[in-house]
């Protein structure tokens, strides 16, 4: 699950990262936004939508995207 601050919502973390970049020599980078990544294993991916809406994201201030990796072994194996 990728969870991001909604468009137009204040993202001070993204701003702080963006301001630090020129000092490190990274030029031409803008609109930095910092979100969250939640990884989990499930036998019932149909429920993920409601899981995001009810707990993992706050729909008032965050958007979420669900990325399924069917190939994962479920035993901590790394994706292909």
């Amino acid at each position, binding site marked *: 699950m990728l969870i991001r601050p909604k468009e137009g*919502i*204040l993202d*001070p*973390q993204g701003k*702080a990262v963006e301001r630090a970049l020129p000092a490190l020599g990274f030029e031409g980078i803008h609109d930095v936004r910092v979100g969250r990544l939640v990884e989990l294993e499930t036998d019932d991916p149909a429920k993920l939508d409601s899981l995001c809406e009810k*707990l993992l994201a*706050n729909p*008032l201030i965050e958007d979420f995207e669900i990325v399924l990796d069917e190939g994962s072994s479920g035993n901590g194996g790394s994706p292909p």
Partner: protein
Amino acid sequence: MIGVLQFPGSCDERDALGAVRRVGEARLVWHEETDLSGIDGVIVPGGFSYGDYLRAGAIARFSPAMEAVARFAADGGPVLGICNGFQVLCEAGLLPGALLPNEGLRFICRQVELVAEDFRGPFASEIGAGERLSIPVKHVSGCYFAPDEQLEAMEATGQIAFRYARGHNPNGSVRDIAGVTNEAGNVIGLMPHPEHAVDPLTGSDDGLALFRALVAAPQAAAA
């Protein structure tokens, strides 16, 4: 009897108890308690419930005690959320809006001036519109946000309870909002800590008015 919730990670529940006990009676309500019988008003206190993991207040809202508080509030019982308690009530949908990380990303701990609005509900009983209160804030996620159209509706119905006085907005809150109520006015939340402003010895006793109002608030309809 006022019930003060206590989650793992709460830290201001004792000050809230002490504040209520200046004007009435109070006891702690452990987060696993589901029976609020005998409780006439609820405080959701400040702190870092469940470590503030995920988002501040996101996990506390699912605690057994909070389910009971949601029923208590729906029956019209008075509920006061302070700081983390405000965040919990927003996450639970008992109050409109959300609290974002402070604009400046820093933890802020300082005395601020609030201005009371002409707001609705029992908590307004001891505080006049336009009254200034000196109350401390201490938080890292206190930047109040709600969409514009929702804010317009809240302004129209008297749901904005407190604003930071001009020049005192510490965290980037939209429209300088420091505290709001639900539509009925029986649930209120604010980021500043009235329980830390109950004795002139520590600079101000302006916070007492909220606890007096809570103790005097009309009771919930019998469930």
